[in-house]
């Protein structure tokens, strides 16, 4: 891979990493599989593109974040206030957003930003190198967002949101409205998805209402790869591993496309396969561990059984030997039964014992 390819993979990994973080919040922290992320990602793209087209790239990003947050809260209201299952709420919002996006784009299916100012072109004027600008700007935004989110999840509200995903009943018992917590979480997640979309449209200088297709699997891949490599451990590490997972995913895609395993339009298939493999890893590992354990156990058990059989046979022998001896003794005793001296000796011993017990009363 050339340096340009590596940089491009890192940039895309970071950009889609924000989306993955956006899915991570509802999916892993709130335990809600939020489908509306797909809609808000595209919405972010369209809003940012429309504003950038009118020479307002910064405002575009902020409005995109707000738009995403509002859509997330709408999903939350559908889910919590009207008791619609979370998956269905997400699908409803996602589908509705498609039309909203077309309205925002004044009926056009795509917007080109070639020749327009974006945050990247503006920053490039100061730095001077296109690739370095893209990497640094994206990295800065990702670091800022993950830090902010991580700090947020350590505040009182953040803690309550985490607890809501963990044990909602218990949170209600501490007199906290879990509905509000779910809405905040969904709003934050979708705001991140929209931010990701907004940055990507300015990065690619292009926005399309259909670019959300298959995006959920991309975000899921990042989360799962991150977890497979770093395990689930705390919210800060979870966010970092998700971003790193997203970058690794981009490298896998880049390599898969480089070796022409599949044509470039097979991206969704490759993504799905990566997710399936990453999801299969724990199950495969478990089965392998179990089999290794079983093999070891069987070996030990066989050894133990074999040894034990030997022990059993030897003890059998020794028992029977002893039996023989005692038999002989018995016989000899019987022979000596008539021997009075022997009898009296025994009597003496028992007498002595009795004497000792009674404290020498016989004397």
């Amino acid at each position, binding site marked *: 891979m050339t340096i340009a390819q590596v940089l491009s993979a890192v940039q895309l990994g970071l950009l889609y990493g924000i989306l993955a973080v956006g899915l991570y919040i509802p999916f892993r922290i709130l335990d809600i599989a939020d489908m509306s992320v797909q809609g808000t990602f595209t919405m972010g793209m369209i809003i940012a593109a429309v504003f950038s087209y009118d020479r307002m790239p910064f405002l575009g990003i902020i409005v995109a974040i707000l738009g995403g947050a509002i859509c997330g809260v709408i999903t939350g209201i559908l889910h919590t206030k009207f008791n619609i299952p979370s998956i269905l709420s997400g699908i409803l919002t996602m589908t509705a957003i498609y039309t909203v996006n077309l309205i925002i784009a004044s009926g056009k299916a795509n917007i080109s930003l070639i020749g327009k100012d974006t945050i990247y072109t503006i920053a490039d004027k100061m730095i001077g190198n296109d690739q370095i600008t893209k990497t640094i700007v994206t990295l800065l935004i990702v670091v800022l967002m993950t830090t902010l989110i991580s700090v947020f999840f350590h*505040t*009182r509200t953040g803690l309550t949101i*985490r*607890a809501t995903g*963990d044990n909602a*009943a*218990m949170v209600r*018992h*501490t*007199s906290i409205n879990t509905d509000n917590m779910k809405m905040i979480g969904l709003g934050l997640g979708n705001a991140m998805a929209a931010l990701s979309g907004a940055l990507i449209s300015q990065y690619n200088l292009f926005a399309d209402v259909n670019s959300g297709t298959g995006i959920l699997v991309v975000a899921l891949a990042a989360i799962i790869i991150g977890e497979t490599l770093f395990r689930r451990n705390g919210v800060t590490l979870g966010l970092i591993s998700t971003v790193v997972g997203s970058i690794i995913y981009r490298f896998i895609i880049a390599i898969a496309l480089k070796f022409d395993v599949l044509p470039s339009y097979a991206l969704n298939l490759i993504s799905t396969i990566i997710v399936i493999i990453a999801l299969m890893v724990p199950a495969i590992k478990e089965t392998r561990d179990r089999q290794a354990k079983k093999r070891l156990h069987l070996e030990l058990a066989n050894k133990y059984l074999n040894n034990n059989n030997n022990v059993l046979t030897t003890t059998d022998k020794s028992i029977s030997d002893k039996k023989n001896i005692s038999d002989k003794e018995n016989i000899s005793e019987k022979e000596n039964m008539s021997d009075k001296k022997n009898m009296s000796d025994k009597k003496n011993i028992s007498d002595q014992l009795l004497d000792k017990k009674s404290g020498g009363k016989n004397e």
Partner: protein
Amino acid sequence: MNNSNDLMLRIRRMTKVFFPGTSNEKIALNRVNLDLEKGEFVTILGANGSGKTTLFNAICGTLELDDGIVILDGSDITWEKEHKRALHISRIYQDPQMGTAPNLTIAENLALAYTRKASPSLFPLNKKDYRFFHEQLEILEMDLELRMNTKIGLLSGGQRQAVSLVMEIISQPKLLLLDEHTAALDPQTSEKILDVTNTFVRNAGVTTMMITHNVQDALTNGDRTIVFSGGKIVHDYRGAERDALDPNDLQKLYG
């Protein structure tokens, strides 16, 4: 006899019917009247299905009543939402899993329970609160104060129940409901938790109701014992009458 101002909880005509109008119709609570004085510790006995837990669910708001009024400390809470009443009512369940969030640490769980009573601050785990939690955990004498950054999910059932108890106490409730909270524990742990319960309840002077199936526990703890049967309170023992009770006689009520 009682000045109504001294009453923490007043329940009138509390009625709940499950599956009304079907062949499975079950009257879980049948016009129950109950008064609890401030600081009273009442133990509740009764066979399965006699309405004890339904009573708790109705007080907590998990269940909507068909009829009746619930008045807590002078204010009518009959139609108040579950999470709103939870500000004043704490409850511990039989299942140690229910009262704590497994993926959060002991300190975080305590901080969560303390949220409503703590002085406002952006971060829940400030030094002052941390020291307070440490003190409360020390009362348990279970060395949990040394493991405050351990995830609750890694603790045993007894330890989790003990943490639940601390959580409920630090939230300073007006009413504490204990729903067979020692039933899932081994005899020694169960005794320990009961001990701690008594310590906390006496220290905080909180009005408490405790459901139990152990007649001995019902008579040795608290200062009043109620017996439920068929959705009604059939016996209400207190004072000298209660002290004179023989656990074996009470046991017969189950038969």
